[in-house]
């Protein structure tokens, strides 16, 4: 092993240099220390996967940065064009592997709309229930991993206790722990049993009981607050301009949630609040703390939705009529749904000739969310950069698709 590079994750690659924003050229004489170019990632504990961020720093301060994505580009759109519609659903699962059900939900809705397939009432309720369970799981993960990014290991492992139980719940109905392929075109794979629903109730109350514990460890922790207050502020203008959606946008004070304001599926039948950023929560509008706070609040709201859906759920079949050799007519469809990370949108074009889509396009919310760090992380400390990337809660599978 004679040949060993000098430093681990940097150098050697031609695209390693940071592109500099035009206005940063005039940094001038303020630089007193040596400027260094870091390559955070693609294997770096804080980049949540294989994101690579080239950072130009001045001491501890970030001068400029450029995220490089595509390290797990898995060609989901090409596969969507190459496979029949129903075979594409598992690939949607793998896009945002922390919110597989939500992805399936949106993808199936798009295909159903394209082919005019109706979904039974009970299946819609089941979809909402499992999607909200998935949202809680995803947010639990986001909260825990955010603690990990900030150096608090324990909340991360504690949340896994609840997360494992929730994953078991979905495992029971689908046979997979992480990726489910439970929601199918025209309905869901199988009905929920009474035992499962009882188990769901036990789990929801357990989550409700544990949330204050996590909040003590993170949300109300002085050190945590000092790390997140006034850090990585995404204000309304920046967020909208960059196309940030989900908790990131709501933390900026935008009172918008697809589930309530543009309801898909049957979300208009439930009564829930949409938490959004305000200056009296702590920190300032749109900072890392508020993003975290919104995730915590959304878990509570999801619990509400689950309970309501559980009460209202009618009896009936769970699978609609899907024609054999499903061939939708020519046309397009654009569906967006509220994923844990933001708005997932599916744009499908059918040429009407085959059982394969002509174009299957997905908007991963993380893709737009992570793009904005070039702007918001400038001038922050390196430690803050970690806090910002963590608070955006990206999943690289969805960024790269």
């Amino acid at each position, binding site marked *: 092993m004679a040949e060993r590079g000098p430093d681990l994750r940097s150098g050697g690659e031609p695209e390693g240099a940071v592109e500099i924003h035009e206005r940063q050229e005039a940094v001038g004489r303020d630089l007193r220390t040596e400027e260094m170019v870091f390559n955070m990632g693609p*294997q770096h504990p804080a980049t949540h996967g294989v994101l690579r961020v080239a950072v130009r720093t001045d001491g501890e301060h970030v001068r400029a940065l450029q995220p490089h994505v595509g*390290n797990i580009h*898995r060609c989901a759109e090409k596969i969507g064009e190459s496979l029949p519609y129903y075979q594409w659903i598992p690939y949607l699962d793998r896009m945002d592997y922390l919110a597989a059900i939500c992805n399936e939900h949106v993808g199936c809705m798009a295909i159903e709309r394209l082919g005019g397939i109706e979904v039974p009432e009970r299946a819609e309720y089941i979809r909402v229930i499992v999607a909200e369970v998935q949202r809680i799981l995803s947010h639990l993960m986001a909260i825990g991993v955010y603690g990990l990014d900030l150096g608090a290991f324990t909340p991360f492992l504690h949340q*896994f206790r609840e997360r*494992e139980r929730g994953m078991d719940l979905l495992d029971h109905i689908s046979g997979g*722990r992480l*990726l489910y392929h439970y929601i199918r075109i025209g309905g869901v794979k199988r009905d929920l049993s009474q035992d499962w629903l009882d188990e769901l109730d036990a789990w929801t109350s357990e989550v409700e009981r544990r949330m204050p514990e996590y909040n003590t460890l993170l949300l109300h922790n002085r050190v945590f607050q000092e790390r997140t207050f006034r850090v990585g502020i995404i204000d309304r203008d920046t967020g909208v301009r960059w196309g940030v959606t989900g908790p990131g946008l709501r933390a900026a004070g935008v009172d918008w949630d697809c589930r309530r304001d543009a309801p898909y599926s049957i979300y208009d039948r439930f009564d829930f609040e949409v938490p959004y950023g305000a200056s009296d929560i702590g920190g300032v509008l749109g900072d890392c703390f508020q993003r975290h706070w919104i995730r915590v609040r959304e878990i509570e709201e999801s619990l509400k939705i689950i309970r309501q859906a559980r009460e209202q759920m009618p009896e009936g079949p769970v699978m609609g009529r899907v024609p054999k050799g499903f061939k939708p007519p020519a046309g397009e469809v654009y569906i967006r749904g509220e994923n844990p990370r933001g708005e997932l949108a599916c744009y499908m074009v059918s040429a009407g000739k085959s059982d394969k889509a002509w174009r299957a396009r997905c908007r991963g919310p993380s893709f737009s969310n992570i793009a904005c760090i070039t702007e918001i992380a400038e001038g922050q400390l390196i430690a803050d950069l970690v806090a910002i990337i963590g608070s955006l809660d990206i999943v690289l599978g969805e960024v790269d698709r």
Partner: protein
Amino acid sequence: MPDDAQPGEVLLDPELQQSVILTKVQWVKDWGRRNALWPMAFGLACCAMEMMATAATKYDLDRFGAGVFRASPRQSDLMIVAGTLSHKMAPRLKRLWEQMPDPKYVIAMGACVIGGGPYSRYGYHVVQGVDLIVPVDVYLPGCPPRPEALIDAIRKLQFRIQERTGESLATIEAKTGRKGAGAARAS
């Protein structure tokens, strides 16, 4: 265990086999190696979540001494390639693997890294198996494999280290000239 070699037959020097003391020393060394497999904190995609779950509360990889996830490849012994390996990532993976000190082990976790998995047919950007890039010691199928399976893979690797005197696949390949000689397959 694979069928191609009796433990200690091809892979040990005959001289080494005869020397009892050396064998004992080797046993102690291997005992250390197998009980302190520090994985690199290196996840690619979905399987990385299951890898985290394996290290976390319910499954607790740390019981086997394999729970010290090191961020630096210089300090890790085991690379769990968890997730889909893309062509863009492949050179970096190779580089990270090269930065690990010997003896080093690789577990290919998940269908994608074993042979491209679901992306094999149409996924133009997915490498058809991580063994095209680095030698793999244990293959762990599944999409994604369950945490129990990962624990099993690590146990398999531990047995393999003890039986094969700690040599990683890279060394064995160089010695025997056979590619893929002695790779194990977990459940």
